[in-house]
């Protein structure tokens, strides 16, 4: 989908695969609410007049949006204190649909904006939701430094292996041999393994799920939001329009079947072992969950020293 494309009636479609597959208590509750009121149970968290969204048929971003909203509610935080920051791209558009304080910044710069926001008002619960190109190519330097500082925030990175918004170009996550609009003979660059980069840079919570793992993703978002420090969740999503079509991966539903058959949950493994190839098995799970003083707590201690107090 290109930036500026008319917003048209494609939607509520995206979430459907996981809804039918993942009959968790939350989903059953949602369905009952919908039957009784005619409203979607997340309507209060979606901006009036903004749905339908711009994403393509079969895209995984609807699942991510739903899972994030369920997860942030489950985390039990004051929703008035939640701020969502995104960069540019298909995933970057998530911020604009959520009826909480939301900031749609420039390409790659969600993290430094979020850092300023969080440090200016440490009461805020900041979530950065953006894509793999935004966070690891143009914004890669900011990612490693935000993780290094252990700024208290959640980073939800949707990885669809390409630049979807601009029509499907090669990304730092594109698997070797995958065809894109700018790798017409197949990608010849080595891709990043995102959890490995995040963990090596200092993230205290690192997980990977696919959009099929809607229920685990909700749990993971809730857990990561509550976890003090820099938390990183990668969500693997299909991109049937721009990535999976040239690579003959099939429609959205085919990719959901692929995730069902080819993902392996391995909690606690070294993220180094979580490389991804083109339609090869995907290792999911929670890889890192550790404690480390946050930037904010370290800064506060330093300020006490600067004022001549103890510590």
């Amino acid at each position, binding site marked *: 989908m290109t930036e500026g494309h008319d917003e048209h009636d494609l939607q509520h479609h995206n979430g459907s695969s996981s809804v039918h597959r993942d009959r968790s208590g939350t989903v059953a509750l949602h369905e009952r609410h919908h039957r009784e009121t005619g409203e979607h149970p997340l309507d209060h968290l979606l901006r009036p*007049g903004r749905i339908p969204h711009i994403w393509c048929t079969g895209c995984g971003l609807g699942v991510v949006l739903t899972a994030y909203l369920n997860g942030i509610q489950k985390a039990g935080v004051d929703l008035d204190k939640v701020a969502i920051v995104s960069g540019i791209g298909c995933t970057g558009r998530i911020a604009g649909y959520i009826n909480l304080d939301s900031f749609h910044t420039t390409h790659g710069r969600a993290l430094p904006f979020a850092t300023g926001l969080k440090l200016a008002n440490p009461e805020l619960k900041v979530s950065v939701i953006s894509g793999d190109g935004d966070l690891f190519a143009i914004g890669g330097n900011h990612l490693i430094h935000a993780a290094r500082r252990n700024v208290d925030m959640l980073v939800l990175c949707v990885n669809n292996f390409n630049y979807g918004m601009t029509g499907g170009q090669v990304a730092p996550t594109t698997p070797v041999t995958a065809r894109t609009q700018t790798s017409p003979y197949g990608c010849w660059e080595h891709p990043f393994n995102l959890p490995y980069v995040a963990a090596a840079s200092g993230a205290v919570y690192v997980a990977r799920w696919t959009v099929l793992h809607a229920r685990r993703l909700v749990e993971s978002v809730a857990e990561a939001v509550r976890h003090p420090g820099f938390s990183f969740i990668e969500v693997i999503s299909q991109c049937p329009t721009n990535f999976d079509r040239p690579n003959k991966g099939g429609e959205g539903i085919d990719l959901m079947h692929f995730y069902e058959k080819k993902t392996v949950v391995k909690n606690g493994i070294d993220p180094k072992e979580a490389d991804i190839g083109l339609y090869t098995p995907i290792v999911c799970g929670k890889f890192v969950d550790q404690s480390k003083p946050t930037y904010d707590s370290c800064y506060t201690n330093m300020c006490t020293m600067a004022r001549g107090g103890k510590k």
Partner: protein
Amino acid sequence: MSRASDVLSGEHFINGNTASAEGAIAAGCRFFAGYPITPSTEVAERMSRRLPQIGGTFIQMEDELASMCAILGASWGGVKSMTATSGPGFSLMMENFGLGVMTETPSVIVNVMRGGPSTGLPTLAAQADVMQARWGTHGSCDVIALAPSSPQEMFDFTLRAFNLSERYRLPVMVLSDEIVGHMTEKVVIPPAEGIELFDRRKPSEPPSEGYLPFEPGPDLVPPMANAGEGYHMHVTGLTHDERGYPIITAAAQTKLVRRLCEKIRQNSRDIIACTEMETDGAEVVVVSYGISARTSWKAIRAAQRGGVKVGQLKLDTLWPFPEERVRALAGKVRGFVVPELNMGQMVYEVERCAAGQCRTRLVPHPGGETHDPADILAAIREVAA
């Protein structure tokens, strides 16, 4: 959050960069994000020492892109914020300066100018970023930039930059240069109670469903809520409507961009500041700013001793440009002399406003040192002749 004791009232002998940092603190700035770069680094150094003592936040970011974004984020967090940099860093800030304009985010950027292009002269002065300040970000916008010529003005103008940024909701630039930044002079910091501060106007209504975060007041400036106050606003660098929602149409673009420009143009009389010296009855007026304004004084005095009626229009704000004043003077004088430490930038504005009514004579210098006053004197004599 700010206390009177945080302001270092009294007389000080400090350099321009330090004075700028103190001006920011006096203005209520409690967030600084920056990246070290000569010749601006003393601003960051001062802030790193001062802010932790007074409840503020100092952070050294990974680059200037990040620094600019961090101050925008901090501003939405409800804290007055600034960064300081020099040429190469200023270039890196341009994209997100535009984000600040589009999202109407109060903040201050101090650019202590050095010689360029590229790495140029890290330790030596120039004034060659003044057109970049005006046009450096992509798209159409009007901007505010102040040009201090002394450490005292570094204090005063940085403080004023905060007031203007809060008043008109945009990142305001302070364009200093290496000489003014490193020059040490007496700086008088007034008592805190004598400092007039302007804080962003807040929404008059509590959060409600139909809240319009970008609905302007009569001055074309929308009141501003901070994140975390329950307004659930959307803020985007895309063209947007009063709700803050992205609208990708020519009509929305016209409405928004026109207002962003008009809020500066309509209020330009409140923003523009010049200092005039002996312009009444002058045959020649030297139009200059920053360090070049001071270099001009020697030439002006020498010319006066030689019988030339010459005055000075010192531009305290470069942007918006004092069009009306230059137009009025152009009808009365024989010509303008414009010395600047670049190969000709503000001179285009002077020439545009003179519109053929009088002569405009540039005294260019690519930077690395001040003008030789003799060159300015020769230009004054040439125009007067």
